[in-house]
């Protein structure tokens, strides 16, 4: 059943008709999702939140190419995100390019920075790489904050986008972002299945062995950084226009950690896992930020906070839950949601045994 007879079967997007059917069903679900959300308030979502989740999913997929498939740690992806966001807005505002050109250009500039960061990363491993990328993320935010060109501390206002002469609303954004996201996810899946992806995985498993097999480490490591930065940069550009306003303060270290958490919670080395992780973590974050509005738990927590904690900082519960999820995932399910999914699948496949 699972035997591959030639190379082209191996790189096929849909391994079986079942997967094809499910994928089409999922795409249909995505197409009617805004309608469900607006009409029935599914899970308390709004189109804006779904947009945010989708953007985060793009970042998570991009980061997973780097962390999950190539095995390079990055704690500076908020930097790429910021570069993408700011350059896209500037291309639209100052240069006057149309959005559909500015967005890939923003991603491209971000990927140039990814390539540059990839160069020192060639010599670094594990903890040292984490420190270097962490420094990169912080340096980008500081630089942007102090340059007047980027609006300084105040940040930039993203211009309104027009679709056939009418200003775009969340729902229009939804379809635009979703189409971009689907294309990028399919691109990532394809990338991993081809020669490049196999080189990435070889580097992750053992870079010395990979080099001995003829994988050009310099080329593929910097390529992984560049591709990952491209995904993040494009997502950043989209993010700027969803929010309508960006300031450098929001692209801080916690954001990089959040991205990393999405990838780890979703499952390292699994594209679908990243999407699931991004969805879960973004949803939790937004819901827990407004924890006092949740019925039953909310009021109880408010009274508890009044007594022992501070009410002003109650949204910090989101951060606590986030941190706990990260720790517990590493301790109990290192493969994240993806690992959980595999185990469940195996359990049912072999069911009564």
């Amino acid at each position, binding site marked *: 059943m699972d035997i591959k007879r030639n190379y082209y079967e191996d790189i096929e997007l849909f391994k079986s008709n079942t997967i094809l059917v499910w994928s089409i069903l999922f795409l249909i679900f995505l197409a009617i999702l805004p309608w469900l959300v607006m009409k029935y308030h599914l899970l308390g979502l709004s189109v804006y939140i779904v947009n945010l989740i989708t953007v985060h999913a793009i970042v998570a997929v991009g980061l997973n190419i780097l962390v999950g498939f190539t095995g390079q740690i990055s704690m500076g992806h908020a930097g790429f995100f910021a570069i993408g966001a700011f350059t896209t807005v500037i291309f639209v505002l100052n240069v006057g390019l149309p959005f559909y050109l500015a967005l890939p250009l923003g991603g491209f500039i971000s990927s140039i920075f990814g390539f540059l960061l990839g160069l020192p990363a060639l010599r670094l491993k594990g903890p040292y790489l984490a420190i270097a990328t962490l420094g990169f993320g912080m*340096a980008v935010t500081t630089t942007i904050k102090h340059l007047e060109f980027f609006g300084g501390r105040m940040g930039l206002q993203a211009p309104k986008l027009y679709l056939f002469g009418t200003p775009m609303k969340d729902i229009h954004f939804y379809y635009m972002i979703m189409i971009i996201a689907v294309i990028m996810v399919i691109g990532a899946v394809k990338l991993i299945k081809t020669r490049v992806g196999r080189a990435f995985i070889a580097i992750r498993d053992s870079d010395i062995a990979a080099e001995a097999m003829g994988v050009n480490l310099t080329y593929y490591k910097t390529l992984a950084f560049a591709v990952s930065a491209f995904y993040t940069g494009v997502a950043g550009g989209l993010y700027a226009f969803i929010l309508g306003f960006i300031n450098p303060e929001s692209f801080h270290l916690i954001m990089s950690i959040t991205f990393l958490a999405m990838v780890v919670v979703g499952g390292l080395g699994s594209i679908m896992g990243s999407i699931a992780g991004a969805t879960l973590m973004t949803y939790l974050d937004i819901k827990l930020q407004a924890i006092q509005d949740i019925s039953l738990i909310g009021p109880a927590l408010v009274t508890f906070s009044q007594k022992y904690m501070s009410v002003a900082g109650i949204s*910090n519960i989101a951060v606590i839950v986030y941190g706990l999820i990260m720790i517990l995932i590493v301790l109990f399910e290192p493969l994240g949601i993806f690992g959980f999914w595999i185990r469940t699948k195996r359990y049912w496949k072999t069911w009564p045994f």
Partner: protein
Amino acid sequence: MFGQLIVSGLAVGACYALIAIAMVIIYKTSEVLNFAQGEMAMISTFVAFTLLETHQVPFPYTLALTLLFAILLAIFFEIAFLRQAKDPTVLGLIIITLGFEMVLMGFVGWKWGPDQRALPFPVSNIEAYNFYGLFISKINFWTLIVSLVLMLILFLFFRYTKLGIAMRATQQNQLAARVMGIRTKWIFSFTWALSSMVGAVAGMLIAAMGVLDPPMMMDPLLKGFASGVLGGMTSLPGAALGGALLGVIENLFGGYISLSFKSVVAFAIIVLMLCIKPSGLLAKHYVKKV
């Protein structure tokens, strides 16, 4: 001006050095990069703040209680989370410490709120001493003294006490240390406690120099990493030297070139150092066999 910049750079560098030392202590023994270091120091500082401000505890007792809290916190983290990880990867360990960092940060934000506060420290951060025309604020002066004394104590501790030697043995070869009768698990807990204490002292000094608020340790954390990389992540004197150097370089850069890009210097140093000499200034370079 040059002398002035160097002196104040040294004082700031002393704080970086303390954080770097706290990280190096852990990294040396267990090869875990502790991203929660800053937040562990911050929560200890907040405990000190509550004791001083709300309960009016005299400073020496506050210091003792804070250090005790720091020890308990570190041991709790080591036993409850780190020890539970079954053969973890580098990324896994980083994620655990990052998760703990977020838990602590969220807890502090919830308990104390996002306001900025001033730590009622017995040394003023406004008055200054005057040494032959060089002004050094009292807090900076005492920071220098405290860190030098702490470094000396740590040096003597690692060199001459039984526990210190046991820690070095564990670092070099865990299995051999176990065979020699060293309880390596205890050593790890103790390492974390020691590091957390050093971090708590650094946190209090940093809060006394500036303000006390939840994100206060973000920047010093990066500087601590930079100092560690500069001096060598496996060398205590290296971390101390790295901290001092970083403080001075940063201050000179801020004084002569550009004040607003001062904090980018740390990143530049990290990248340069990692490219030229990844093991750092003072650490011995060794390559792991595959």
